[in-house]
């Protein structure tokens, strides 16, 4: 995908695709959270806190879990379109979070937060779910967007910052479940 330099058109398409894909998954989780609404608030909070704690232990290496993911790579045919269209399609599939491998733990915490930790008010819940999806899509596009502003191609970002962001998101999800 990024063997060549991503121009502004490709980076924009990529970001739009990632945000769109994330909005699809975010909407699905928002609807599912509505189905879980009959569960009392306290029970939902306890379950969510327990799940996020387990995910945090997994991220810290205290426990080792087989987290569900689709062991599938996005096919090469995706890249046969013209570059902006291919970037949109590829990023859309990545943005959904269910089409390919998940190499971090915090996306699972985000799913738990959206399923069990959304605010009670419908407007606030919709706003929070949309914000989470947009944030996910934008975060997913940081590497490509930052490359479009530079002359050189550098696909990888430092692993320690990716891991820091992973742990930070897990801790923020935990704090959100306790404080909000």
């Amino acid at each position, binding site marked *: 995908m990024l063997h060549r330099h991503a121009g502004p058109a490709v980076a924009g398409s990529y970001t739009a695709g990632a945000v769109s894909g*994330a909005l699809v998954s975010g909407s699905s989780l928002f609807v599912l959270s509505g189905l879980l609404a009959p569960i009392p608030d306290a029970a939902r909070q306890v379950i969510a806190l327990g799940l996020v704690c387990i995910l945090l232990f997994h991220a810290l290496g205290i426990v080792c879990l087989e987290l569900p993911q689709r062991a599938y790579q996005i096919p090469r045919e995706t890249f046969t379109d013209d570059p902006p269209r291919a970037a949109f399609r590829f990023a859309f599939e990545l943005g959904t979070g269910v089409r390919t491998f*998940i190499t971090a733990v915090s*996306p699972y915490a985000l799913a738990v937060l959206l399923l069990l930790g959304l605010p009670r008010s419908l407007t606030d819940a919709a706003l929070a779910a949309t914000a989470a999806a947009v*944030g996910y*899509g934008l975060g997913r596009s*940081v590497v490509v967007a930052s490359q479009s502003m530079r002359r050189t191609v550098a696909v990888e970002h*430092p692993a320690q910052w990716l891991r820091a962001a992973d742990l*930070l998101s897990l801790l923020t999800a935990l*704090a959100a479940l306790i404080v909000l």
Partner: protein
Amino acid sequence: MTTPLPPQSARTVRFRGSSASHRVQQLTGAAAVVVVALLALAGLISALPALVFFAVGAGAGYSLSGSV
């Protein structure tokens, strides 16, 4: 009279420190994490769920962005 140039083999070019690309990657990564942390803190302090959810989403998305 002109002085002869030194032979190519005698000239060595040494690069010291990390490359510019590496530095920019480090800075971009650090900036992304700091922005997410500030957003999360602001959202938690001001009790704005949308901001906290945005921060969790952004951090989760960025943590996956290494596998483009």
